[in-house]
């Protein structure tokens, strides 16, 4: 039995596996299948200042070795999260990363300020959403915007702040350095890659929103590359995600430099994926005689 515990910017986790934001809601639906306390943490559904109804359907499309989604940040708003969902999650033995989003830096900061007064363990700031003050370009696509939103959220909370990076950029390392300089305690990556499918019989895009985020095993090599590059560019911890569907994938992403991993689309294929991944990681570490998962973080030996 290897030691699977990790520490991300001062927060201890009994294992490094976290269901990613968006796939897992606020956890309740999966408690029916396994105890949430088996998880290292949970990244909750992206939550905004006010309720959002999200996009029209279809919001989901199958793709080779993956899927597209365009849910459009449907959520009940931060007050509902704090009053109803967070107290439930805080009764479980796991780290709660409250994923937040907003249309302006000020909105993101206001959401973070509300969470600052709670017992939530960490805040994960989604910067892949459009900045309405800057013509709808995603915060995470420009260093100045990523820096500004991170700085304003940083000022609003003392909670450990994880900034979730978009891969739809020319240089993810530049964005990572910008948010580190603005006070992020950690970064998580990769969010989904922008994609599109068309139904050739109707000529219509499959998604009602035309485009959506690609995830699943198809994006895993991109995640490994970006985690490796970012881990080498910043001093703060990296939480890796993107197509992780097995214990071996999780180990690989940690070797690339991740201190913890999030699991997304794999949960749709196998709802037990996070707990299976925990046990597969343990088996692999035992088979190699590695006593602690911390020993493999960044252990890749590049050519």
């Amino acid at each position, binding site marked *: 039995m290897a030691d699977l515990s990790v520490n991300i910017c001062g927060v201890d986790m009994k294992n490094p596996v976290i269901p990613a934001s*968006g*796939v*897992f*809601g606020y956890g*309740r*639906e*999966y408690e*029916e*299948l396994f105890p949430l306390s088996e998880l290292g943490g949970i990244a909750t*559904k992206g939550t905004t200042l006010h309720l959002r*109804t*999200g*996009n*029209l*359907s*279809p*919001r*989901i*499309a*199958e*793709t080779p*070795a*993956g*899927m597209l*989604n365009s*849910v459009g940040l*449907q959520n009940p708003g931060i007050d509902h999260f704090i009053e109803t969902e967070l107290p439930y999650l805080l009764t479980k033995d796991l780290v709660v990363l409250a994923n937040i989003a907003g249309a302006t830096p000020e909105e993101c900061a206001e959401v973070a300020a509300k969470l600052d007064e709670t017992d939530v363990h960490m805040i994960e700031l989604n910067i892949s959403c459009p900045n309405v003050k800057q013509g709808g370009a995603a915060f995470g696509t420009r260093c100045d915007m990523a820096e500004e939103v991170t700085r304003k959220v940083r000022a609003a909370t003392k909670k450990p702040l994880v900034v979730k990076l978009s891969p739809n950029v020319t240089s993810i390392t530049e964005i990572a350095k910008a948010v580190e300089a603005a006070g992020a305690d950690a970064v998580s990556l990769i969010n989904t890659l922008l994609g599109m499918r068309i139904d050739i019989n109707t000529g219509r895009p*499959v998604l009602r929103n035309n485009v959506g985020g690609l995830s*699943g*095993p198809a994006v895993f090599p991109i995640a490994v590359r970006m985690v490796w590059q970012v881990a080498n560019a910043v001093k703060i911890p990296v939480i890796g995600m993107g197509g992780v569907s097995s214990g071996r994938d999780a180990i690989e992403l940690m070797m690339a430099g991740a201190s913890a991993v999030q699991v997304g*689309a794999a*949960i*749709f*294929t*196998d*709802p*037990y994926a996070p707990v299976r991944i925990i046990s597969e990681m343990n088996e692999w570490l035992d088979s190699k005689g590695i006593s602690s998962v911390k020993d493999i973080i960044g252990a890749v030996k590049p050519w």
Partner: protein
Amino acid sequence: MRYTQGKYIIAKKQAIARQIYSFEISCPEVAAAAVPGQFVHIRAASFTLRRPISICGIDKEKGTLRIVFEIRGEGTAQIAQLNEGQLIDMLAPLGHGFTIDPSYKKVVLIGGGIGTPPMLPLAKLYGSRATVISGFRSAGAAILQEDFASAGAETILCTDDGSAGIHGFVTEPFKELAEQGGIDAVYACGPMPMLKNIAAICKEKGIFCQISLEERMACGIGACLGCACRTKRNDEEYFAHVCKDGPVFNAEEVLW
């Protein structure tokens, strides 16, 4: 237990029409929990997303579920290749089923094409109090007519091309039944235009109507919010989710 995930033995497999298969699956704990109108979420080995398929039969004594599905694409084609004795990976039973009232004296069950299978458990419950109107492209695509008859239900068959039964859509015979009156409830599953027409007739006649909807789906249990459906709750627009709030909705809640 509300739902669970596991691998279950396919006890019986039959092709019942071109590209339409019937599986009887041995899954006692799922069968014990299942109610009419719910669905199962089936894993197709080489795909990321599971395929939601409605429940066509629940035998709690035998501990089996029956599903009837059509090959619509590569995922369902892969599921159709599974054979008797092999294991099928299901997350089930899922969703909110039909409202059943034993005091109803006359119900109408309406199925369009592959929307017909979820009507069978209702036919078994209501027996001779049920009239089943089902519509298909042609005689060759018609399924489950004998099953409905042996459940004691009256059957009305419609085909788009007139190759069997009434030449036309299910809405025509339904309008006639609705005019005659005395219907306590209507249950329907099929293409959206069909459901919309049936809901409009029921609204006009003041008949309680429940419809089963379909949407592209990911988690199947209400976590990912992928399968949104526009509904009305307390007079406000509400994006419900087909997997958890549905697949069965009261027709008057749905915003078409």
